């Protein structure tokens, strides 16, 4: 098979000369998937935009060629280029909500592409629209075709985007983080769809992603990008078996999972260097633990090894170094050995802290029983309540001192609302929240304020959670002032210094503003702010989902070591199951406002009982990628304003029966700690042997 896209020496830069994409070459064979892997700010998206000549103002292509299906893209007139976009090469974007026009129906938007690239109009176009929507797996396509984007769910919108891209029958589909904004179960659906489409139409796929799991599932060839350059290029099998570049090795090592439960993750210290800051030497040298003097002096050349794996690193340039590489690679699998030296950037002596895995006898710190948070739906002139959105519907849980409870679920299942209701940021409708034996619901404002110090929250987006107009010291001081902790100002400053030490930031950073820090550093500040009032429980609301893998590892290490040091309890709200495996002692799985399964991390993740938990686990793309039977979930999360009767999961469940539709399943104990809400485990049903397939 020939190459469909051949890029060589592509350089894209700012008008001031700083290079975003620096001399990139790769090619994609027909029918194959090429994945560009890298952290944010590495120039992945700009590469794609350069190829389609859609660069924003102020960014220009300064060199290189790109041949798409034999046509030189950069030699085309803009008018001819327009025929290429959407015709030979189509693109889908990250945010499906923003890439569809809200005032046009799904059908109209697809018909527009058909009209432009296939010359199809009227009835024929309409029919083709329905076909396409059918092809991308949208149920009831004829009706959906006439609907507006706001009537479609996120996964559905991404499908419509793919249908639009397919309408032009492209030879190359550029997918820029196509599933990053979607839930795991939806992500699995969309990835499957992309694979199926590829098999059916034989198009090539340029997949841009930061997720190693997605790469492992989708790619044939992988290019690893760092700071504008491709630092390593290999086939998927080669890359997974033997990553060569230290950066790639570290990316793998930074992934959290259960096997490293008691060790620190291999975080990559620091963050991606700013644009154009490094002109000489290897761009990764500053963060690399295998760097030597040469690395910062001489820019490494592109080296291709015998088996076709390419790498940009001094380690592999001469024969002697190659021997070293073989030695490193000989382990076959990524081993954590060579990352042990990595500086995890916090003050604790990590080695000792992690050994004492079993904490002292747990006593229940937070006890929640039957918590409900309803939001009334008001309608009409008189604003009468016509319904309730049951965001949290009868949740009970408890967190012992010094332990981590992970709350897992897809977006919209009410997990963030639950977290805020515990902090009394959203008033709960009913139920009880007891902290160390003291009831929090119904406390007067003044009494509640006294309790504020015991529970704090770390938010998801470190860019939105720090006031940009306040300095770090002021941010950290705020809680102390509000709660009258350390009334004397010198003591306060000393406390701020201690906090900064604890979270691994320099003491001098307290006079700086948040915008001067990177995402990971900001999250450290946010953690320090929460710790400032010495809480016993931290509610972490997806604290790493906005961060890159390498930085995520830094933060997870920090959270873990803080737990050891301060005997903190965590309620860890997340949708990332890998993080759960690494951090949590106990897990609650939430679906549509209710907890459907709970137990220790090992029980829930290794032997899940509820069909939803099973589906959720099987949807996670894994690096090893084999041996997991996929359970595909149909459809989307139903609206919490109008939950389905009986078991909420019944409409999407593959083991559904009459009882499920009739009544909500009661709690069934699987073991002393493992509880599941599913009719499959009712005594009566157990006899019929209708147990769901156990996961290997």
């Amino acid at each position, binding site marked *: 098979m020939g190459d469909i896209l051949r890029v060589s020496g592509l350089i894209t830069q*700012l*008008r*001031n000369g700083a290079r*975003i994409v620096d001399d990139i070459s790769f090619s994609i064979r027909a029918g194959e998937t090429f994945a560009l892997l890298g952290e944010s700010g590495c120039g992945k998206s700009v590469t794609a935009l350069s190829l389609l000549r859609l660069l*924003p*103002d*102020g*960014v220009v292509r300064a060199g290189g060629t790109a041949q798409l299906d034999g046509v030189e893209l950069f030699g085309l007139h803009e008018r001819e280029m327009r025929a290429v976009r959407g015709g030979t090469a189509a693109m889908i974007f990250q945010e499906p909500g923003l890439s569809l026009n809200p005032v046009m129906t799904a059908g109209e938007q697809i018909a527009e592409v058909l009209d432009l690239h296939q010359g199809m109009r009227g009835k024929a176009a309409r029919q083709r629209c329905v076909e396409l929507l059918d092809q991308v797996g949208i149920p009831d396509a004829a009706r959906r075709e006439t609907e507006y984007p706001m009537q479609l769910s996120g996964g559905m919108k991404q499908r419509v985007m793919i249908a639009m891209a397919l309408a032009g029958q492209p030879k190359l589909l550029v997918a820029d983080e196509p599933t990053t904004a979607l839930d795991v179960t939806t992500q699995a659906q969309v990835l499957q769809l992309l694979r199926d489409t590829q098999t059916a139409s034989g198009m090539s796929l340029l997949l841009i992603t930061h997720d190693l799991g997605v790469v492992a599932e989708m790619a044939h060839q992988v290019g690893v990008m760092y700071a504008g350059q491709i630092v390593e290029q290999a086939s998927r099998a080669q890359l997974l078996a033997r990553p060569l570049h230290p950066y790639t090795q570290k990316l793998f090592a930074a992934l959290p999972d259960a096997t490293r439960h008691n060790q620190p993750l291999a975080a990559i210290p620091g963050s991606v260097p700013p644009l154009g800051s490094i002109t000489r030497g290897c761009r990764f040298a500053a963060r690399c633990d295998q760097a030597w003097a040469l690395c910062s002096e001489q820019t490494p050349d592109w080296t291709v090894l015998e088996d076709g794996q390419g790498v940009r690193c001094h380690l592999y340039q001469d024969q002697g170094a190659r021997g070293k590489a073989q030695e490193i690679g000989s382990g076959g699998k990524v081993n954590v050995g060579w990352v042990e030296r990595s500086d995890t950037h916090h003050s604790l002596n990590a080695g000792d802290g992690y050994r004492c895995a079993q904490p002292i006898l747990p006593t229940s710190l937070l006890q929640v029983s039957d918590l409900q948070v309803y939001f009334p739906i008001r309608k009409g002139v008189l604003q009468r309540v016509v319904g309730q959105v049951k965001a949290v519907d009868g949740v009970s849980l408890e967190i012992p001192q010094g332990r981590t409870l992970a709350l897992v679920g897809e977006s919209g299942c009410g997990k963030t609302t639950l977290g*805020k209701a515990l*902090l009394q*940021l959203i008033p709960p409708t009913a139920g009880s929240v007891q902290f160390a034996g003291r009831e929090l619901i119904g406390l007067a404002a003044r009494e*509640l*304020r006294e309790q*504020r110090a015991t*529970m*704090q*929250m770390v*938010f*998801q*987006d470190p860019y*939105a*959670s*720090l*006031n*940009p*107009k*306040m300095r770090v010291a002021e941010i950290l001081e*705020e*809680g102390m002032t*509000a*709660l009258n902790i350390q009334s004397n100002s010198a003591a306060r400053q000393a406390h701020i210094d201690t906090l900064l030490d604890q979270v691994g930031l320099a003491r001098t950073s307290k006079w700086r*503003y948040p*915008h001067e820090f990177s995402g990971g550093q900001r999250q450290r500040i*946010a953690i320090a*702010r*929460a710790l400032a*009032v010495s809480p016993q429980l931290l509610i972490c609301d997806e604290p790493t989902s906005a961060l890159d893998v390498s930085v995520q590892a830094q933060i997870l290490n920090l959270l873990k070591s803080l737990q050891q040091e301060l005997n903190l309890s965590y309620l860890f709200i997340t949708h990332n199951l890998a993080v759960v495996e690494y951090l949590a002692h106990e897990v609650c799985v939430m679906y549509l406002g209710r907890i459907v399964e709970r137990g220790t991390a090992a029980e829930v993740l290794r032997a899940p009982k509820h069909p939803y938990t099973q589906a959720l686990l099987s949807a996670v793309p894994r690096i090893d990628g084999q041996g997991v039977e996929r359970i595909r979930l149909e459809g989307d999360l139903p609206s919490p304003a109008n939950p389905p009767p009986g078991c909420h999961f019944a409409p999407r469940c593959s083991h559904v029966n009459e009882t499920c539709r009739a009544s909500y399943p009661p709690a069934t104990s699987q073991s002393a700690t493992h509880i599941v809400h599913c009719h499959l485990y009712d005594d009566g049903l157990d006899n019929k042997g209708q147990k769901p397939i156990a996961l290997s």
Partner: protein
Amino acid sequence: MPVILWSDALVFLLLAAGIACAWYVRQREHLLLPWRRVAQSATAMVSLLVVSLFLLVGLLDTLHFQAALSEKNSGETVYSPEVLSVFDLLVTPLRTQTEKTYSAPLAVTLYAKESIEMPDGKVLREYPRLRYGGAHLTDTQRQDSDILWRGLTGALAGLLAGLLIALVGKRWLAQRGWPLRALLIATLIIAAIIGMTAKLAAAYHVLGTDKVGQDVLYLSLKSIRTGLIIGTVTTLVTLPLALLLGIAAGYWRGRVDDVIQYIYTVLSSIPSVLLIAAAVLMMQVTIDTHPQWFDTSASRADLRLVFLCLILGVTSWTGLCRLLRGETLKLREMEYIQAAQAFGVSSLRILTRHIMPNVMHIVLISLVMDFSGLVLAEAVLSYVGVGVDPSMISFGTMINGARLEMGREPMVWWALASAFGFMLVLVLAANLFADTVRDAFDPRLNRTEMVA
């Protein structure tokens, strides 16, 4: 004896607030950043230069005093009833050298023929010579060459002065990376124009005279202060209303929001000219029935100006309020606000510490943008007759006075043209400056710049 009128006090207050703000911003790097961006724009700096010249005239015109008269009344100094400003003092000849009636720009004679009785008893129908304009000329034939000569020498002198300023300022500018060339050129041009005007104004009425023979250049320059006061003092009234109500509505939502929204929706649906007219007429009646409140006519006119600002302010806060409410609705969902709530920080403190600083860029942008609108509003209101006191010199009263003469043949165009020209330059410069300020504070534009 210095006199501080109401509007003077407000101007000084604003000036102090401005200086305090500037000092505060200088201390904080992140606040300074967008201003650095403004300083790098050639358009912004040139328009700022123009605006600051207007501001200088306005400020000089704000320092009021009453001159002491030479005669003494039983040992006590007697002050003239006329309130003058430092600016009046500087341009005394322009103020005092009044003609009989209309004369065209740079003319040596009146605009209309009059019957002149000659020494020999004959009555001649002729354009009479002006009392001051071109009075030094014995031969009116030499008028053109004299104007040319004076204009050229004036421009040259101005240019020299401009060069001197440029040489002094050059190094200082270069250090800061400000747009050097554009500023130098602008300085030279402005200096030349000022030099030329000054030289010509010593002997002629550069922009002609109006119906009662007052110099139009003087009137135009005096109008600047009125315009500036309307443009700036009004914001003193708008700002607290819009800021407090807007933020409160956005943060508390619910009933508070309903009430505030109701108020500003009602207020903005009343035709504002009607509302202003009604308020101004009521105020005028009050002022007329209490002449004992005012010791000079200037203080009466001034009070009316202040009240006009007040009324304009009360009717024009709704736009900014609506903007701030929207922004606050967005901000209150930000996680740092929730973090503060989780600490039990009081609402008032969240409003002042977290929300207020984060909406200040909107306040700033809309104030700069509103300024030009208010200057124009004053002109329109005075034209309609509900603006400033007729005795107060303003662009509106100038236009109103010139309006009637537009129909006469030959047309008297210069009063209108100069009011138009001055206003255009002021408002255009303010708008250009506001545009750059808005761009500098626009987070979306900044982002592309950062990626870029």
